[in-house]
């Protein structure tokens, strides 16, 4: 008797499940995979990406641009470890609901995962990987950040025009840092300048005094820094303590409010570039800043904006690829056709052949503890 009753309950459940399945066929879910370091040493960046992407997708789902389709974000934690990145890439590739992937954070992990996505033909859009070789992996790799091949020579010209004829270069010892230093050096030498010293520091270095001493000995007119803001602020503080007076030119990776907090007065005078300016008065940038701040209690910075735009570019591509009927191949083609996308990091187009993004850079300087636009 008992058994019969249980059978009945089971039957009812099965019916209910079948019914609810029928109902959800009307409301289809399309997923975007997002791989980023959510724990470990780079977790602060991954967390910001997750915030921005969630904000973008929630706004999209509310907007009703794709009736009957819900976009779902699936996050995986790559811990900034290339091995983890590859495992996640396999997992995402096996997940049929995922039509496109955003991530990873640094070039090394993005490129390792990219090898998998190239084979499984999943479109991959990194918000930050700027190594030149990343988009060369296959036609499935995209990025929403200017490469160092564009940014490096631009900063080189800026430094050269400001009167520096001899520069010392310091950059982090990873794929990104090497391409940042390499492109700057190439650009600076092409202008007729000399590079007195090129130094790479290991990730996790806290003491830059040995490198600073070496730079001081080479007597440059200016110093180029290719680093993230934490290393950058330690470097700037120790530079002041060691009594080096040369001006510092840096990549957009230092455009972060935390730099001003960590380095304090040592940050004053630093020249840097950026695609995203949080103080901008353009309505769509101001709206993003306001919504982000309201939800996460803090102003978004460069990386948050990169991720927000990357997510929206991916969402646009899914719409263009047919929404509910989007396939990985169609999303790839739609991404490649991205043109004049009005992002918060500037108007963005992807070059159809090289898949390199084209974005404008603003020039900034730190003055009295604030980022100020300069000519």
């Amino acid at each position, binding site marked *: 008797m008992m058994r019969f009753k249980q059978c009945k309950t089971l039957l009812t459940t099965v019916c209910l499940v079948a019914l609810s399945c029928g109902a959800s066929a009307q409301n289809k879910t399309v997923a975007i995979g997002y791989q980023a370091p959510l*724990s*470990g*040493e*780079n*977790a*602060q960046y991954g*967390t910001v990406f997750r915030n921005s992407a969630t904000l973008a997708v929630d706004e999209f789902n509310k907007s009703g641009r794709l009736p009957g389709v819900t976009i779902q974000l699936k996050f995986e934690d790559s811990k900034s470890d290339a091995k983890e990145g590859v495992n996640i890439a396999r997992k995402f590739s096996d997940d049929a609901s995922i039509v496109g992937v955003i991530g990873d954070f640094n070039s090394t992990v993005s490129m390792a995962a990219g090898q998998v996505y190239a084979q499984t033909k999943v479109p991959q859009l990194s918000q930050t990987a700027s190594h030149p070789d990343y988009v060369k992996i296959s036609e499935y790799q995209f990025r929403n950040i200017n490469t160092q091949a564009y940014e490096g020579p631009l900063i080189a010209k800026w430094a050269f025009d400001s009167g520096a004829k001899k520069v010392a270069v310091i950059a982090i*010892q990873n794929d990104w840092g090497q391409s940042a230093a390499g492109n700057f050096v190439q650009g600076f030498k092409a202008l007729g300048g000399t590079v007195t010293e090129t*130094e*790479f*520091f*290991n990730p*996790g*270095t*806290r*003491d830059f*005094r*040995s*490198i600073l*001493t*070496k730079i*001081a*000995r080479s007597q440059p007119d200016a110093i180029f820094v290719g680093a993230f803001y*934490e290393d950058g*602020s*330690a470097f700037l*503080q*120790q530079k*002041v*303590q*060691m*009594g080096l007076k040369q001006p510092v030119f840096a990549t957009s990776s230092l455009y972060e409010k*935390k730099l001003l*907090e*960590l*380095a*304090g*007065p040592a940050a004053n005078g630093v020249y840097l570039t950026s695609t995203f300016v949080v103080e901008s008065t353009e309505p769509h940038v101001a709206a993003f800043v306001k919504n982000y701040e309201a939800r996460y209690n803090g102003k978004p910075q460069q990386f948050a904006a990169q991720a927000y735009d990357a997510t929206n570019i991916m969402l646009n591509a899914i719409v263009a690829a047919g929404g509910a009927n989007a396939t990985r191949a169609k999303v790839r083609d739609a991404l490649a056709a991205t043109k004049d996308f009005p992002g918060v990091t500037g108007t963005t187009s992807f070059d159809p052949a090289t898949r390199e993004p084209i974005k404008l850079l603003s020039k900034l300087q730190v003055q009295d503890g604030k980022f100020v636009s300069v000519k």
Partner: protein
Amino acid sequence: MFDVFFVQQLVNGLSIGLIYALMAIGFTLIFGVLNVVNFAHGEVYMIGAFAGLLAITQLAPPLFAVILVALAFGALAGFGLERIAFRPFRRFRDEASLKSKAIREATLLSSLAVSIIVRELAEKIFGSNMQSIPQEYLLLKPIEIGPLSFANGQFLIFGLSIVMLGGLQWLLKHTRVGLSIRAVANNPMGAAYVGINTERTIIATFVIGSTLGAIAGLIVGLYQGAIFPAMGFAPGVKAFVAMVMGGLSSIGGAVVCALILGMAEAITTSFFAQGWGDLVAYLFLVITLVFFPTGLFGGGRERV
């Protein structure tokens, strides 16, 4: 090559080495007594820095008081660590267990587990990024002596390591606690037979060692301008290398080897590139182990 910049490089190397030495002192003390590596020492170092930072942001007391706060939290952390990670493995008092390698390795792993849990918890609570430190507490004020530039933190670290090393030697040679620590380190069963309370001595060792670690963490954090949950890892590895090179239980030896490592890094940066610094440091370790299996200052201990 041998100009004033080279002298500056030696100063840099000395200050890097002193940071490793500060950490190695507490590390080696605990190893000497238990014969087990305490992997959570790096987290005690981190706890000291965070406790100090919280005191700074909440109360803004003078630096001396901040050090006392770090000291208190370090002592507490050492006590707790011993309780959680080490005591459960000392339940077995028979001679076979005392000599068992399995028990030693289990203890080593339990300290590693505590270290991971504490670090991840700190990342959950504070975030993994560097904490902002009020500028006036940073130990980065430039002090120029002739053409050489120093930071006030470097003098503090130098003074602190001398005080720690000297104080510890005095403690070990002239106080009752110190004498019992040495007795337990020498022969735990023998110490128990002559009436020394080994449990209390081991707790005392952890409290003293962790206090030193916590103060080191605070001062180095303020000197480097970098306080974050994973801050104990990199110097912890170097302190471990220094301890092994120095012969595992010789505190003075560990300090000397820490200074050698720091100098090697600075000089390698000067002549080659910073990326080679670690390689040279580990090369020293390999050479030491090949030619002096018991370490440079190890005396007649068993092979590492």
